[in-house]
C-alpha cells in the first residue's frame, strides 16, 4: 500500500476513471429510472413507479415487429458473413500470393471508412435497384462491414492452427470434404462463434447503415429508437425511454454473452494485425 502513497499520479488516474464511470452510470440509469417513473419533473426521483410505459412502447412502436426484423437481419447477416468470410480467411491465412496486400486493403477499407460515408452512396445504389426500404436492403448494407470483419478476425485465428494437422489428415486418406468437416470445422468452431457474436453485437448496434437503408417495415431496434426520439412530440418521453431500456438490456445481454467468448479489445477492432 505504500506504493499508493508514493505515486499521487495513480490517484489522479483513478479519480478520472471513477468520474467517468459515475457519469456513465448516471447516463444509463437516468434512462432506466425514467422508463419506470410515473412522472418526473425536476425532483431527484420520479414520484411513483410503474411498468405501463413498457406496454405503451410495445404497442406504439410495434416492438414485436421491430424485434423480429432485428433478429432476422442479425441472423442472416451472421450466416452470410460467416459462410462468405471464413473461406476467404482460410485462403488468406494459408496462402501468400501476388496482390494479397491489395485484397487485404479491400477488406480493411469497409471497416476503416465510417458507415455514414459509404452508406449514402450505398443507399443510393440500393434505391436504384429498388432494394432500399426492404429487409433485404438492410441485410445487404449490414454485410458491408460484417464480411470483412469476419475475414479479419478469422485470418489470425486460422493462422494459428497448425497446417500439419490438415496434412496429417490427408496423409491418412481424408478427402477435402472430410478435412473441412471433421478436422477444420471443430477447430474453427470457437473462432466462428466469437466472430458471430461480435457481428451480432455490431449489427444490432449498427445505426447508420440501417438508418440509411431501412423503410417503415424494415427498421431494427436502434433505428426505431432514433425515430421514436424524433417523433416524440406527442408521445411521452417515458415510453421512448422504455424502448431505450429494452435496447440497453438486450445489448447488455449480448455483451455479457460475447465477453464469455472474446477478449474486450477484440470488440473494438482487429486492425492491429494489418498495420
Amino acid at each position, binding site marked *: 500500500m505504500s506504493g499508493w502513497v508514493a505515486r499521487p499520479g495513480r490517484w489522479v488516474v483513478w479519480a478520472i476513471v471513477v468520474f467517468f464511470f459515475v457519469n456513465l452510470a*448516471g447516463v444509463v440509469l437516468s434512462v432506466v429510472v425514467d422508463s419506470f417513473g410515473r412522472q418526473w419533473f425536476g425532483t431527484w426521483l420520479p414520484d411513483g413507479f410503474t411498468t405501463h410505459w413498457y406496454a405503451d412502447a410495445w404497442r406504439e412502436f410495434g416492438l414485436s415487429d421491430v424485434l423480429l426484423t432485428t433478429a432476422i437481419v442479425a441472423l442472416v447477416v451472421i450466416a*452470410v458473413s460467416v459462410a*462468405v468470410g471464413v473461406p476467404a480467411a482460410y485462403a*488468406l491465412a494459408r496462402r501468400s500470393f501476388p496482390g494479397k496486400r491489395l485484397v487485404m486493403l479491400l477488406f480493411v477499407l469497409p471497416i476503416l471508412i465510417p458507415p455514414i460515408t459509404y452508406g449514402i452512396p450505398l443507399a443510393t445504389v440500393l434505391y436504384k435497384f429498388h432494394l432500399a426500404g426492404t429487409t433485404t436492403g438492410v441485410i445487404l448494407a449490414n454485410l458491408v462491414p460484417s464480411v470483412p470483419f469476419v475475414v479479419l478476425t478469422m485470418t489470425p485465428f486460422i493462422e494459428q492452427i497448425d497446417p500439419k494437422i490438415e496434412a496429417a489428415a490427408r496423409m491418412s486418406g481424408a478427402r477435402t470434404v472430410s478435412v473441412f468437416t471433421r478436422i477444420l470445422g471443430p477447430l474453427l468452431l470457437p473462432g466462428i462463434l466469437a466472430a458471430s457474436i461480435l457481428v451480432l453485437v455490431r449489427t444490432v448496434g449498427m445505426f447508420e447503415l440501417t*438508418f440509411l437503408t431501412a423503410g417503415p417495415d424494415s427498421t431494427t431496434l436502434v433505428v426505431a429508437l432514433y425515430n421514436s426520439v424524433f417523433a416524440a412530440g406527442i408521445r411521452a418521453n417515458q415510453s421512448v425511454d422504455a424502448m431505450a431500456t429494452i435496447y440497453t438490456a438486450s445489448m447488455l445481454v449480448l455483451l455479457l454473452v460475447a465477453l464469455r467468448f472474446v477478449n474486450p479489445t477484440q*470488440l473494438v477492432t482487429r486492425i492491429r494485425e494489418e498495420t
Partner: protein
Amino acid sequence: MTAVASARPALRHRLAERGIDRTLLLLVPGLLVTACLFLYPFLYGLQLSFAPRQGGIFANYARFFGDPYLRDTIWTTLGIALPATFINVLASIPIAYVMRVRVRGKRLLTTILVVPITLGTVLTAQGLIMYGGPAGWLNKVLTVLGITDEPLPLIHNYTGVLLSLVITGFPFSFLLTLSYLSGIDPSLEKAAATLGANGVQRFRRITLPLLAPGLAITFCLSFVMAFSVFPSAQLVGDPANETRVISIAAYHAAFEEYDYSMGSAVAMLMAVVMLIVIGLVMAWRGTLYRGATGGKG
C-alpha cells in the same frame, strides 16, 4: 499433343509455387460481396457526384464551397471531432499506463468500458439528454454542491455532442491504447530502471516512443469515428447551427432534398477531409521509430 499435356501441369505448378491454386477460389465470394456492396457503390457515388442535377461536372463541389452554410460544416465537424479525439487519446495514455500491469479489477474495468461502445450513440444521446439536462442528476448535484447557481447548458449544443463523443469514443481508444501498451516488452522498462531511470524518464524515453506509432493508429481510428458523428449531433446537439456537421449536410442533401448527386458529393468530400487528416497523422508516424516493440505486438 504431348507438348500441351506437359505444358499445362507445368503452368499449374509454376502458379502454385507463387501461391496461386484452387484454394484462392475461396476468396471469390468474399471479394464479390465487398466489390458489389462497397467498391461499386463508392465508385458509383463518386461518378454521381460529378453528374449534378444542373450545371457542369463540378457544379456540386462549386455549390458546396460557394455556400457558407455548407462549406462551414467542414470546420464545424473538425471543431468537434479533433478536440474529442485529443481528449480521448490523451486521457487513454495515463489510464492504460497504470493498467498495463496486472491490476486488481482490470478485467472488470475493461468489461465496463465496453458498455458505452455497445450502447451506441443513440442511447448515449438519449441518456445525456436526461442526465445532463437542466433538471437532470448532474445539474442537481452541481447545484446542491454549490458549484453552479444555474443549471449548466450541457445539452442541445456543442458541449452535448462533445460529451457524447467522449463517452462513446474514450473506451474505444482506451482499449486500443491498452492493447498497444501490453504489446511492449516490460523487460525494456525494467532494463531502464536497472540503469537508473526514474518513472518519468522511463515513460518519456522508453514507453512513449514505442507507443507512439500505436497512438497514431488509435488517433486515426478515433478521429474517423468522431468525424462521422451523426446521431448524437442530431439528438443531443444543435443540428441547425452549432453542430451542423458534414454528415448532417450529406444526409440532408441526399434524403431530404432527394439530390443524390449532391449527397454523394458531400460524402466524397467527407472522405477526402478524413483522408487528409489521416494522411497527416500517418506522415508524422512515418518519422517515428517503427521497429519491433520487443513484445507480442
